[in-house]
Structures are given as structure tokens and as C-alpha cells.
């Protein structure tokens, strides 16, 4: 990695090289594959947002949280949903406060205007007060604006962008390519330090090309045996190595079956936690059967797996014993 070391480091130290990122993320409990670490590295150095895709529960949101922890940056999160618009995402005027102030200041305004002889003069004086009620104190910043105003840098997580409307997606374009937004009353607000932006998507709908083009794209696949063991070991400290190997092998074999929803990493971790709590030392069929609902979230899937349970467990212990 001499190539990176010889370059002057642009970003914060933990993002200086791909290896440093992998090690740093591991330090905060996130086991990243090489591609994930590379994505983070590129995001920092090209100053581009990362669009993270993958099945539910593979650690998309977790990646943003861990990155924030690694950098010591604040994490600003925007959860998307259908109908989300600028007033919820960017800024809103504090209508109530504006009204209250106008009421309180009514008399004061009367005094100011009292001296005016004509309607026109009164108008001029009103203009002179400026856009008092549309100024910073009445501005309610929402996540996007907050992120742009973090001068020390921050991690912005735009979660489940695919749930939002297409109009909102288009609205994000300016923000994502130039790290600035236009507020009609205040002008253009530009980030002094561009935030590190993560967008996550579950592929509920296809995202527009314009958005994809502005982002780096990271697809997190389900991990292989080795990586998943490391993840479980990090997330569930009490798990024995042998049990870890067996349970991961079992989950991996489940993923080969035709299921409605195959278990992803978060399910594996939950299950491992449950097994540790139950003081299971090995995968006994009874224990597995009772805890299967932690792995499989659909009744049909459980029904489909149960008859094959012994066979799967046998294979799992074979795989893990063989190593």
C-alpha cells in the first residue's frame, strides 16, 4: 500500500488507507470486507456519497453508525418514508413562534407605524424592518441542513431512500453532488466540511439513474462462513469458537434453501446471542427447533425447514468439524 502512504492524507487519520479503515472499523465492532473498506476510502477521497444496498439485516445502517463512531463524528440520521418532503428533511419555519412574536410585538409595531402619515410611509417603514420573521432564529433546521452546518464534519445517514418519493430523490441531487442546498429566503447554504453521506436502500423501487450516478455504489452481500464467524465473534463475545463455527455453518446451509426470507447477519447474531443465553454448548436439535423462530421470520419457512433439521445439523457439524 505504498501508493496511499506516499500521498498526503486528505481526510481524518482513520481513513488514510484501506487497511487502516478495516482495522479501525474492527476496533468499533464492525467487521468490514475489503470492498466495504474500499468504498469508505473512496467516499472520503472522492468526496462522494455512498449508496449502500443489500438485504435487510446485512449491516447497511450499522456501517454508517460504526463509521461515525470510528471518526468520532456526530451521526445525523434521516429516515425516509413515503411523503417525506423538504420541510421534514431540510428546514422549516417555526410558524408558531412567528405567530407568537407578531402578536407580542403588535403594539410595538403600532408605535413604529404611528408616526407615518400616509399608507406609503407606513409601508416603507415595514420594509425597513426587513425579513425579521424569516431569519435564523425562526429557522428550524432538519437533518440535511444540520449536516451541512456541522463545520467539524459529520456522518449523514439517509436511511431507506427507496421508501421516499421520486420527487424527494430529485431534491437530494443538489445536496449530494455539491453538498449545498438552496433556501429561497436565505440563499445557498454550502457545507464547509462536506459530510460523509451514506444512503441505504432495500430495493423497494428502482432508484433513478441521476441519483445512482452521483453516488458510489456498494452492495453488501451475505458474508461467507469465515467472515460471518468473525462478525458473530465480535458481536457476541461469549460465544465458543466451536459453537460459533457450527451455528454459522447451519445458517449458511439455510441460505441455500428456497426460503421466503433467508436469515441475514442480524438474525445470525440474534440467534447466537440466544444460544449463549441458553448456555447451549453445541447445536442440539431440540434447542435449534425451539429457537428457529429467531432465524426464520415466516411460518412457511419454519415448516419447510423443520423436517430437514437433523440432516442440516449433521452437515453443519461435519463442515465445522472438518476444519
Amino acid at each position: 500500500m505504498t501508493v496511499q502512504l506516499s500521498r498526503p492524507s486528505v481526510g481524518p487519520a482513520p481513513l488514510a488507507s484501506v487497511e487502516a479503515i478495516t482495522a479501525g472499523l474492527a476496533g468499533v465492532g464492525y467487521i468490514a470486507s475489503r470492498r466495504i473498506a474500499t468504498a469508505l476510502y473512496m467516499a472520503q477521497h472522492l468526496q462522494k456519497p455512498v449508496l449502500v444496498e443489500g438485504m435487510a439485516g446485512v449491516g447497511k445502517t450499522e456501517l454508517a453508525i460504526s463509521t461515525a463512531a470510528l471518526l468520532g463524528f456526530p451521526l445525523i440520521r434521516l429516515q425516509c418514508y413515503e411523503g417525506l418532503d423538504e420541510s421534514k428533511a431540510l428546514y422549516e419555519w417555526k410558524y408558531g413562534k412567528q405567530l407568537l412574536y407578531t402578536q407580542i410585538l403588535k403594539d410595538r409595531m403600532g408605535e413604529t407605524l404611528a408616526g407615518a402619515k400616509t399608507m406609503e410611509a407606513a409601508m416603507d417603514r415595514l420594509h425597513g424592518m426587513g425579513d425579521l420573521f424569516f431569519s435564523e432564529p425562526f429557522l428550524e433546521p432538519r437533518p440535511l441542513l444540520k449536516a451541512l452546518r456541522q463545520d467539524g464534519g459529520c456522518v449523514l445517514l439517509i436511511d431507506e431512500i427507496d421508501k421516499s418519493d421520486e420527487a424527494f430523490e430529485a431534491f437530494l441531487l443538489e445536496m449530494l453532488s455539491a453538498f449545498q442546498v438552496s433556501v429561497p429566503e436565505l440563499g445557498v447554504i454550502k457545507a464547509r466540511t462536506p459530510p460523509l453521506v451514506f444512503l441505504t436502500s432495500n430495493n423497494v423501487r428502482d432508484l433513478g439513474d441521476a441519483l445512482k450516478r452521483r453516488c458510489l455504489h456498494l452492495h453488501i452481500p451475505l458474508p461467507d462462513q469465515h467472515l460471518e464467524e468473525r462478525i458473530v465473534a465480535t458481536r457476541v463475545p461469549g460465544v465458543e469458537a466451536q459453537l460459533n463455527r457450527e451455528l454459522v455453518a447451519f445458517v449458511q446451509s439455510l441460505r441455500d434453501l428456497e426460503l421466503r426470507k433467508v436469515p441475514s447477519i442480524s438474525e445470525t447474531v440474534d440467534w447466537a446471542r440466544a444460544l449463549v443465553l441458553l448456555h447451549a454448548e453445541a447445536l442440539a436439535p431440540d434447542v435449534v427447533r425451539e429457537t428457529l423462530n429467531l432465524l426464520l421470520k415466516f411460518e412457511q419457512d419454519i415448516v419447510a425447514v423443520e423436517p430437514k433439521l437433523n440432516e442440516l445439523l449433521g452437515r453443519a457439524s461435519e463442515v465445522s468439524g472438518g476444519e
Partner: protein
Amino acid sequence: MASPAQATLEEFIKALRASEVRVSPAEAIDAHRAMIEVGYADRALVKDALCITLAKTEEEVARFDACFDAFFTRDAFRGEAMRSAASSPGGAEAGGAAGSADLPLAQMLLDGDAVSLAQAMEAAAARARATDVRLNTQRNLLSRRILDEMGLRELEELIQRLRESGAPRDESLADRLAERREALFQESARFVDRQMQLYATETGRRMREKLLAEQKLTAVEPEDIRAMEILVRRMAKRLATRYARKRRRARRGILDVRKTIRRSMGYGGVPFDVVWKTETIEKPKIVAICDVSRSVAAAAQFLLLFLYSLNEVIEKLEAFAFSDRLVRVGDILDEEELDVAIVAILKRIGFRPTDYGRALADFADLHRDALDRHTTVIVLGDGRSNYANPRLDLMREIAHRSRAVIWLNPEPETYWGQGDSRMDEYKRFCHVAKVCNTLNQLERIIDEVLRTYMPR
């Protein structure tokens, strides 16, 4: 400005585009910037960095990985003849003979210098514009052109000269050269194959898809069925996106001044409560009736396929299928996977002789009361009733109760009313009656149907 590394990256992007990873110019620039960041030293890092900047969907990532591996593998010349050449003694000293020294190709062949040969071939390919290869039929021509660029003609002349000289030493040299020339032929063919794989797969596929979309549904070859299914699904997804967007846009309102002022009365004229105008959106209710009888057997599978896709797109879809009797198939479509659902439906009522009158009667019994002025009825069928009573009275009633009746018929219009077809009579009760025999027609018509629901 353009370094060799940059030129390689350009070529790679070209290969990516050919293997259906869409790369815009802006992304290409990003790729160059990415390479400046990470350098070319670490192959895995290069791959990851490029993948992240260029591939934008899960499928594209898979295609990217394959393309990267194919592109950056330079297969060294592996021909058996080459290897034996390298080890055979006398290759070098023979090379100096009879003017072969001034012919680099002959020298390389005699030396068995695989690396130089591979490089020479790539250079020749660049001159022959190998990356422009698109069609299978260009294969031999291209292979020949590359060899010519490498100096094949001169090599052949040399062999000829050696044979004519008659000296035993020259004779054996000529034999050796001829043998390696064969190996070279094979290598160039392999090289062209790889170019084809890299640059031409996409064009061919796209051409096929275009043809398939215009292909008559009733005359689809069995080997095309999978490709067709993919097309249908893509089409349904496209319609879904377009349609959902329109509905959502209508949900947004503008300020309702009248109501806002009225409500402000309670606050002494201060517009505390702001009221927005919202348009009420009619949720479409679509009833699809699909003929799966013997006469439309060939098209039935696709009609069902489309019904299935439509079911995923439209919230309120009531689906029926019939041949002699009519049954509700919404549950099957909801619960089963595509393949299972189609087989299950066809098994249940498929391929029997049609009885439109009977089916309409069944439909009236099952669903008459649910038809109202928001309902659009789509009939997919040929209108051939086997000379049974067509029950036009029921058709009239259905048309009367619902908002629109749309009939999509796989037969050409000239056949309507011929033989046992009652289409010309049914047509009178339809708001739209159209021939629908290709996927393109199907998409266009359904798009129109969905559009009529959009609030104006």
C-alpha cells in the same frame, strides 16, 4: 495526456458497456479519479475501487466482476507447439538462417516467445480495430486481419522461399514454421473469441430482445420462453414505477385559501391552521378476465404471466381465468410463485373448449355486484365461443355497470367474426377492443389503461 494506463481503462469501460454495465461519461471520469487515488499496484484494490464507482446495481456488480476477470486475464500462448518450440534445441540457431531474422514474427515463432507473441497480437488487434467486433459473422475476417497485421503474408512468403531452396536444413525449418503457423491460427481464433465475449455479447442480446418484443405471442419458440419471461417482468416493473409516480404526485396539494381563511376566524383572523387542497385519487379497480382455453393455448401462458405481473403492480386487481367455467385466481396469484401459479391455473381450468357464455354467466354470478363506475374490466381472449350462446346480454350489463371494458385479442382483426368468433359482436360493448399479440402492444395498451386513471 492519455497514458497507456488511461487507454486501458477506456478499453475496459468499453468492455463494461458491452457486457451491460451502464457507464456514463461522468462515471468514467470518476473511475479515472478513483485510479489516481488508489494507483494500479494492487489488483484487488483496483477491482474494488472500479466496482464501487462503476457498477450501480447488484446485477451490475456480478457482471462487473466477470468482465474484470475476463478483461485483465491475458492468456499467454498456450499452444503445445509453442511450448515444444521453446524447449527444442536448435531453435535459436536455426532462427538466424535464410533471412528469417528480418522477419520478427518468424523469429518469435521459432523462439517460442509466448509473451512477445501475445503482445504483438494485441498490438495487431488494436490496429485491426478488434474491439469494434459486433457480430458473429465478423469472426473469421477479424482473425485474418489480425494475422495480416502481425505479418502473416511475409511469413508465408518466407516458408515458400525456404521450401524452394531445396536445402534439407531449410526444408526442416520450413516445416517447423508451418507447424507453428497452425498454432498461431488457433491462438488468433481464441483471441477473437475472447474479444467477442467482451464486446459483442450485449449487442446480440439486445437485438434478440427487440425481436422478441415484436414476436407474436402465439408463435414463441420454446427456447425463447425464459427470455420472454424476463421481458414481461421488466415491463411490469416499468409500468409499476411510472404508474406509482403519477399517483403519488397527485397526492400533493396546494394551499386552500378559502378553507384556511374560514378556519382562521377562530384565531382572530390569524391563519393558524393551514389547509391544503388535496385531490382525491380514485384507486383503480381492475378486473382482469383471462382466457386459457385450447384455442388460445399458445398465448395463454403469456397472458397469465402478464396477469401475474399486473397483480404485483396494481393493488386492487381481481383476476379470473376461464375456459368452459370461470374461476377466481387472485389467491393463487397472490400466494404462489410465478411458475407454480401459472401451472396451477392451467391445471385447474386450462385447455378445455371455450364457452364464453358460460364463463360470462359465472362471472356475473361471482362478481356482478362488485362492478361499479370505478371498475375497468380487461378481457384477454380470442372471443371464440365454439358456437355456444355468447350471452351478449351479460356482456351488455357488464359494460353498463363498469367504467370501461377493454378487450385484448391475440387474433388479427380480419379474423374477428370469422367462424365461431363472436368478437365483432362483443366488440360493440367494449370501449376499447384491440389486437394484442406482441409484448410491445401489450405494454402500450396497459399503459394507456393505467393512464386513464390519472386525475387530470
